[in-house]
């Protein structure tokens, strides 16, 4: 197991190294002039700032040296550059936006896994019955819906036409101000730790629609995977043995088949999480959620290269770490993987 862990960690470091090269190349080679891409217009008119910028990132030196400087600025000085759009350090902004996204994606994943597995099991048990047909239609819709459109539709329906849920934002700014209270930034956790139940209700009401829309695609993936795995497991020999021993059908499904069927679902959850990170851009934009997705959108459309690089690095790190976690989980659950 230790060897397996070390090998995975080693691969992760190589991968992150590659990602940093990719981000570096995009930010330094694509724009015709790095100064123009990384400095605001007023800063460009000041030769002193331009000279200081060139010295800081070593723009007169060969490309590989520039990369070393770039990495040193990130790893040693914790400096991802300054956003052109806002003039603030990118790292500071990322730290500010990240909790909102973390909270949203955790809830979206929870919804996707719980509903996805439940729907998948129901679908498999009632194979080809009406309930299976309905659930299959929902899951195939889940992977075909453009989520920017779905988000807009859901918001229009449940926030404007039938105002059941509050539209946009993380909380009602007229009633609460959790941002300045100095919590973790994860308002659900903060509200619980402060014992502030009205705030918790408000935060959850704001959270549920974006999380549902964001998790819908992943839910579809998980439903499909659970259904087909369970069906495959149900036709295997050990299930026939269990049945022939006279075991109750519910016990056969829950104790014997599902355990084996769920292992590949973990991998799909990883894929789903990856998709969630992309879907975030749309969902956060439509629900005015102040998170990384919104930040990535603003960075990309304003060609704010320091911010684009910072946000891509952050997302790649999160993604690689989550996948490492899934791989390890997979190795723990299924010993065959570990020994390969």
């Amino acid at each position, binding site marked *: 197991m230790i060897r397996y862990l070390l090998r995975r960690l080693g691969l992760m470091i190589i991968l992150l190294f590659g*990602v940093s*090269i990719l981000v570096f190349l995009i930010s330094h080679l694509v724009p015709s002039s790095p100064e123009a891409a990384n400095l605001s217009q007023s800063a460009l008119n000041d030769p002193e700032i331009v000279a200081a910028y060139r010295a800081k990132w070593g723009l007169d030196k060969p490309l590989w040296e520039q990369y070393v400087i770039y990495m040193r600025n990130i790893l040693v000085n914790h400096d991802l550059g300054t956003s052109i759009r806002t003039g603030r350090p990118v790292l500071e902004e990322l730290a500010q936006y990240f909790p909102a996204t973390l909270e949203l994606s955790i809830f979206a994943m929870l919804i996707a896994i719980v509903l996805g597995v439940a729907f998948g099991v129901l679908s498999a048990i009632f194979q080809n019955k009406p309930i299976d047909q309905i659930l299959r239609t929902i899951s*195939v819709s889940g992977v075909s819906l*453009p989520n920017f459109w779905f988000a807009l539709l859901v918001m229009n329906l449940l926030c404007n036409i039938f105002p059941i849920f509050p539209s946009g934002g993380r909380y009602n700014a007229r009633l609460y101000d959790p941002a300045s209270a100095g919590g973790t930034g994860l308002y659900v956790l903060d509200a619980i730790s402060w014992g502030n139940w009205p705030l918790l209700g408000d935060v959850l009401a704001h959270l549920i629609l974006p999380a549902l829309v964001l998790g819908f695609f992943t839910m579809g993936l998980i439903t499909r995977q659970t259904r087909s795995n369970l069906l495959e497991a149900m036709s295997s020999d050990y299930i026939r043995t269990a049945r022939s021993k006279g075991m109750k059908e519910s016990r056969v499904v829950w104790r014997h088949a599902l355990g084996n069927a769920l292992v590949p679902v973990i991998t799909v959850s990883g894929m789903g999480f990856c998709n969630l990170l*992309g879907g975030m851009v749309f969902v956060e934009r439509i629900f005015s959620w102040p998170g990384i997705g919104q930040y990535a*959108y603003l960075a990309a459309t304003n060609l704010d290269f320091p911010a684009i690089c910072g*946000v891509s690095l952050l*997302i790649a790190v999160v993604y690689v770490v989550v996948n490492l976690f899934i791989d390890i989980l997979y190795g723990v659950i299924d010993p065959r993987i570990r020994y390969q």
Partner: protein
Amino acid sequence: MKLIKDLLRQKNFMFKLGLVLFLAWVLVAIFAPVIAPHDPTQGDVTLRYLPPSADYWFGTDELGRDVFSRVLYASRVSLTASLVTVLISFAVGIFFGGLAGYIGGVVDDVMMRFSEMIQSFPPLILAMVIAAALGPNISNSILAMAIIWWPNYARLTRSIVISLKSNDYVTASRVLGATHTRILTREILPNSIGSLIVMCTLDLGNAILMFSGLSFLGLGVQPPTPEWGAMVSDGVRDTAKWWVSTFPGLAIFSVAIAANFIGDGLRDYLDPKMRRSNS
């Protein structure tokens, strides 16, 4: 041909529905100028934000343009862009994947690490960054998507080639003196084409979702060219005018779901194990 006949004989309603939907969109794309009742780019501002009516089936948008005609015309850009993206990724992917799987060694290692690097980004984020960096337009967003997608095909081709190349019939062919090119193109690729085609069809749905997503963010097709994703974003400004965004969104959804139905049907057909459990 026999494949298509066999497929159609299957009792798979979803597959047929997907096929009909998709072919319908292809026809719409070809005959858009004939079917469209109004000009897709010229609007009359005095007629802005009209709700759906007999004259304007899907209503009009902010500039008084007919949403129905725009939805029809937009199928041209969206379908072409998705098809081109998938074809480029497919071609590049099978070339490098086939090479990596067949030769192995350093070529294989370098390619796998490179594709892992690209795949360690969430696809949309990377596409956004590349499209923004290159400058937002149709060909750059196609390029951005192809850069992200080809590793999927390369990895699939590689794994199939590796599993096939130790088969007896490949060895037999090599013993008979066949060249590497001949072995790859005549023995190995024909046997791996099935799963690759399934992947292409399923990807067509993903490509249309991502392409319209990029346009929705303003990083793809630029106005006044009608495109579904960009049209949905027109509706964000005033959500009460629901028709502006609802119909183009439905169009994206219908193409994506058609691609999924066709892909699922093909996969079930090509994989007898799945065929049994789904019948």
